[in-house]
């Protein structure tokens, strides 16, 4: 009797479930979770949504397999699987659309994925061993793709290496996407297709591991002959090397006048005066030496300090909104002194991160008053000094990086001991270290998160990564972040500094460094980073190296080989003067400085302590940041219609041009003839002398009617409205 029963049962099983054959051991970690990600269960619009879908929630893109396993198994008393009859499991019936499923058909009945899930349930839904079944790394084959011309295809393979040493081809399950599909796109099964000349990066993601495959599509046009240009330093060598490989001919260095205007704006935020321009152009010293000397002259100026104080004021969000009047000025003064003395960058950062005491006595403490709470302070610190954005990991693991939610809270706990309390004077606060009640807890399970560095740095005296109890958390953090072993600190600054002079970072955006946002020229960024570290975080050295390069000094004119290149710095790109530069340039051109009641007369826009000076006026219209965030992106340098209308019709310009104490009036009173007047106007606005044609036309216009003064004003108005004036080119 028993035997008959057994037989019946076995045959029933065999007939109904032809997939229940002897199968290899299936685990959730290694086999099932990747399927859920691949077929889209864990995607944002489906069960990966913050609130799940139809009562079933999985982690976004499967970043938390433990959570997903629990949701699948334990929700509502294990409703989703059926160990007694695996084929009847909701987990199979839903995605195969055997029962109504809002997400539609996701898994074909009988397919490989179906079998895997079936076997997993039949084997008792094992989770797997995280020490064995987790992916250690993924490998891409080939590691880089180079195509001789557009239109070619290349299959890429993704291979997963597991912690137990196993290796598996996961090309089908891995997610692969192109960062620039217009240049090279990739199909779901990882076939890369080159669409046009240029470079793109394929971003590969599999089970929380990330990889990239750089793809280069070369220009097949015949006739390319590399014309070597002089190389001023390693920057030129490294960029030329890549350009030559890509068959891109870079632009030659711009002329002296263009260089002078560009480097003056970039280093000091100011136009050269007409006299400076005249003298520089007349100087017979060999150009390269002459330029190098000018760079040193500019770096020694007070306006250099002002210009970089403004940049740091933005990044550190110096504003009376957060700090009050007195502290905003004092924090600015602290930044100014740091830049004036060329304080090593690591020291500058360390002083802020470890600052304690009265905000009146130690202005660096204001760093903590802007963000106040540990979480925003951590987010700001990592974004500004490491170029790493942690903000998404507050709620879930980073979707495109290896950062985890745990790390968010571990990093936050370095700042959770920072306390703020009112001082004795009005507006004063004391930054102190809390002795208790500073634990950071994980939002999911409330456990206390110990401070732990984002990445290990072996020479830090506090290695391993987790701190002992009672250690000074901020001191340890400051030591870690400024360590030369920190893979982000120097790199992030080198990259940011590069963007100030070339218009965009080697990694761009500059404060979003991650595997899926690869550098345009890795060798260059590495070399800059190493140089910066080798010179002990000397910011002036870094700047000097960049602006002395031929690449920085290149012209904006393109040739047939580099006209489509926008990523490899093969030619200069015009950049609109930012708000403060523009206002100061107008002052320089017209000879009249607008007055603001909050600051002493004759204060340059570049010297303003915060965006409350001249609020809602010209500066804000031209994109001055309100310092609401530590993102470089808050400053806008596009050109909009309201801006154009303001330039054409606005009073800032028309009043300054017509001012009785302005440049036109002075030149006229000095009795300059037409030629001298025109030369003065061109030098004061475009930092160059007029061409013979410009001179002829200018003279004709000046003599064409009654009021010479009004006609001179018209000419100045036309010059400041020209692109050559509005842009740094």
């Amino acid at each position, binding site marked *: 009797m028993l035997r008959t029963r057994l037989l019946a049962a076995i045959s029933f099983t065999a007939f109904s479930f032809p997939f229940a054959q002897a199968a290899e051991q299936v685990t959730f970690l290694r086999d099932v979770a990747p399927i859920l990600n691949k077929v889209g269960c864990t995607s944002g619009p489906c069960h990966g949504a913050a609130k799940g879908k139809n009562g079933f929630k999985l982690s976004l893109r499967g970043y938390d397999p433990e959570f997903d396993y629990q949701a699948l198994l334990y929700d509502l008393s294990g*409703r989703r699987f059926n160990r007694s*009859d695996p084929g009847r499991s909701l987990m199979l019936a839903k995605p195969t*659309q055997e029962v*109504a*499923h809002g997400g539609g058909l996701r898994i074909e009945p009988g397919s490989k994925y179906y079998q895997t899930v079936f076997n997993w349930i039949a084997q008792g839904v094992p989770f797997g061993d995280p020490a064995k079944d987790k992916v250690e790394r993924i490998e891409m084959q080939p590691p880089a793709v180079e195509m001789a011309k557009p239109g070619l295809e290349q299959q890429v393979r993704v291979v997963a290496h597991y912690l137990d040493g196993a290796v598996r081809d996961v090309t089908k399950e891995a997610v692969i996407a192109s960062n620039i599909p217009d240049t090279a796109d990739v199909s779901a099964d990882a076939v890369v297709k080159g669409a046009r000349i240029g470079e793109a990066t394929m971003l590969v993601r599999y089970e929380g591991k990330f990889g990239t495959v750089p793809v280069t599509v070369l220009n097949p046009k015949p006739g390319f002959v590399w014309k070597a240009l002089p190389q001023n330093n390693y920057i030129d060598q490294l960029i030329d090397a890549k350009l030559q490989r890509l068959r891109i001919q870079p632009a030659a260095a711009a002329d002296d006048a263009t260089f002078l205007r560009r480097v003056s704006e970039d280093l000091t935020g100011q136009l050269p005066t007409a006299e400076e321009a005249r003298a520089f152009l007349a100087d017979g010293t060999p150009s390269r030496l002459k330029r190098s000397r000018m760079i040193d002259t500019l770096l020694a100026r007070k306006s250099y300090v002002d210009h970089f104080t403004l940049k740091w004021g933005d990044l550190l969000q110096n504003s009376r909104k957060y700090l009050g009047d007195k502290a905003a000025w004092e924090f600015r003064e602290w930044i100014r002194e740091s830049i004036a003395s060329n304080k090593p960058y690591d020291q500058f950062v360390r002083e802020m991160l470890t600052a304690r005491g009265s905000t009146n006595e130690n202005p660096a403490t204001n760093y903590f008053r802007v963000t106040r709470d540990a979480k925003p302070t951590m987010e700001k610190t990592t974004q500004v000094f490491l170029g790493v954005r942690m903000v998404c990991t507050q709620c879930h693991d980073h979707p495109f990086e290896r950062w985890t939610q745990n790390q968010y809270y571990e990093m936050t706990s370095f700042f959770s001991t920072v306390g703020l309390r009112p001082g004795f004077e009005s507006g004063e606060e004391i930054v102190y270290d809390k002795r208790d009640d500073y634990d950071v807890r994980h939002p999911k399970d409330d456990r206390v998160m110990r401070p732990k560095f984002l990445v290990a740095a072996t020479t830090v005296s506090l290695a391993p990564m987790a701190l002992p109890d009672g250690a000074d958390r901020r001191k340890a953090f400051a030591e870690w972040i400024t360590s030369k072993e920190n893979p982000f600190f120097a790199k992030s600054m080198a990259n940011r500094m590069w963007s100030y002079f070339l218009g965009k970072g080697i990694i761009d955006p500059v404060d979003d460094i991650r595997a899926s946002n690869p550098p345009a020229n890795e060798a260059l960024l590495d070399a800059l980073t190493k140089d910066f570290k080798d010179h002990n975080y000397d910011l002036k050295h870094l700047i000097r190296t960049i602006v002395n390069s031929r690449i920085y000094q290149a012209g904006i004119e393109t040739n047939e080989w580099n006209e489509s290149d926008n990523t490899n710095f093969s030619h200069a790109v015009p950049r609109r003067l930012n708000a403060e530069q523009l206002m100061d340039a107008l002052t320089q051109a017209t000879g009249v400085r607008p007055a603001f009641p909050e600051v002493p007369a004759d204060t340059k826009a570049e010297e303003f302590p915060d965006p409350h000076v001249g609020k809602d006026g010209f500066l804000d219209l031209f994109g001055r940041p309100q310092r609401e965030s530590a993102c470089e992106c808050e400053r806008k340098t596009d050109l909009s219609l309201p801006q154009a209308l303001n330039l054409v019709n606005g009073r800032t310009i028309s009043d300054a041009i017509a001012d009785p104490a302005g440049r036109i009036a002075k030149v006229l009173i000095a009795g300059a003839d037409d030629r001298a007047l025109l030369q003065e106007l061109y030098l004061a606005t475009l930092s160059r002398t007029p061409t013979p044609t410009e001179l002829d036309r200018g003279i004709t216009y000046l003599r064409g009617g009654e009021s010479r003064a009004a006609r001179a004003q018209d000419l100045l108005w036309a010059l400041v409205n020209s692109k050559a004036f509005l842009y740094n080119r």
Partner: protein
Amino acid sequence: MSLMIDCLPGAKWLGIFSDRIASTAMRVFLWTSLCLISWSARAAADGSPGYFRDVRPVLQRQCQGCHQPNSLSSGLDLTTFEGFAKGGKRGPAFRAGSPAESLVVKYMRGEMQPLMPLGGTAVPKDQIEAISAWIAAGAKNDTPKEATDTISAANPPSYSQPPVISALAFSPDGQTLAVSGYREVLLHKADGSGLISRLVGLSERLNSVTYSSDGKLLVTAGGTPARFGEIQIWDTATGKLKRSVTLTGDTVFGGSVSPDGKMIAAGATDNSVRLIETSTGKELQKIGNHENWVLSTVFGVDGKRVVSVSKDRAAKLSDTASGGFLENVNLLRGELQAIARHPSKDIVVIGGEERIPYMYVMDRPKVMKIADDTTLVRKFPRQDGVIAALAWSGDGKKIAVAGLSPQVNIYDADTGKPVASCTGHKAGIYAVAFNPAGDRVATGGFDGHVRIYNSASGELLKDFVPVPLLVSRND
């Protein structure tokens, strides 16, 4: 073709139960779900397109995501032939003999907008042609009338692995322990010393098992996930199913029997609480006060009120006579899954996502203020996992808390002090029950074992797998 053998001959099983199964739709449902594999094998035999073989799979794959009982887009339900024939807001989905005038064809071809499936890939031409041909030939429902199921009272389920245990109950006389299985309730001797009998039914999952207070009835609430819900009423004396009430398109949860035995309450995935008359199976009330799935219910002492807990975080008190909403019993915190009532007082303990059991008085003050929490009697310690089950001992003295934590904690109901911890489970515990004397507590869950503990000491007295296994397992 051998696959067909399982499904075609003999309608024994359906025959046995057919008088209790509410609708034809239900029968089709059962048949289709039981014979998933066989239809594809059947396809090779016959040439001309048929509903069951050719049309139904297309609808199932391409259309049922939206046109299903839960969403009813355009008022159309394509999960049954009847729904397909009836059509939706725009009328019948097909007109027999006239494919060109049939809505289903026109929408799939794009002759009517929007093209169906909405936003999805178009239905392949050959499939549309098959549907057209079927309509042209008269649109016959050729769904086979007969179905078979190897599982019946005479041939109860066999198990290669222990099933997840989702419900447990001791009989009021303390002699029997009822345990949920797959498609059945297993009646064991109360001390776990042996299997007495098996009550085999239709529902794959039994989310709750409850005895009436006189012990004459055993009531289950469950169903088959995403297919149907069912309340089974068993006569404990004969072991016969007195009545099966099928309701909703998904399982029902947390069934409870009124103190006088006349009413049964259960929660549903359509956010309602259903009140059923025990003697007739008639639905007395469909109470729609919740905003999410209702996962458990309990009647008040006099049976005039019922409290239901839901994923919408509320424990709602409703009037059983009118179905009217009376009050929220609790302050809304996390999603709720479990509720238990004091044996003789209108006091309940609730728990769920937040992991903290709260004890509330069911009666609320006349004048309520927002965030008024004065009826909270006691807050118990936070558990290590989401709470899935609660039990209150018959003497009113102990409360057992079970859930995703691998242990069941027992507390003194009067003081909130921990009494004992019952360990031994490997994973989630979904069912917990006291025996009538209150000195034993039985638990069950993910690992498929029933464990019986001394409720005062937490000592494990018995650990057994409640189902007969085909192959003995070491764990």
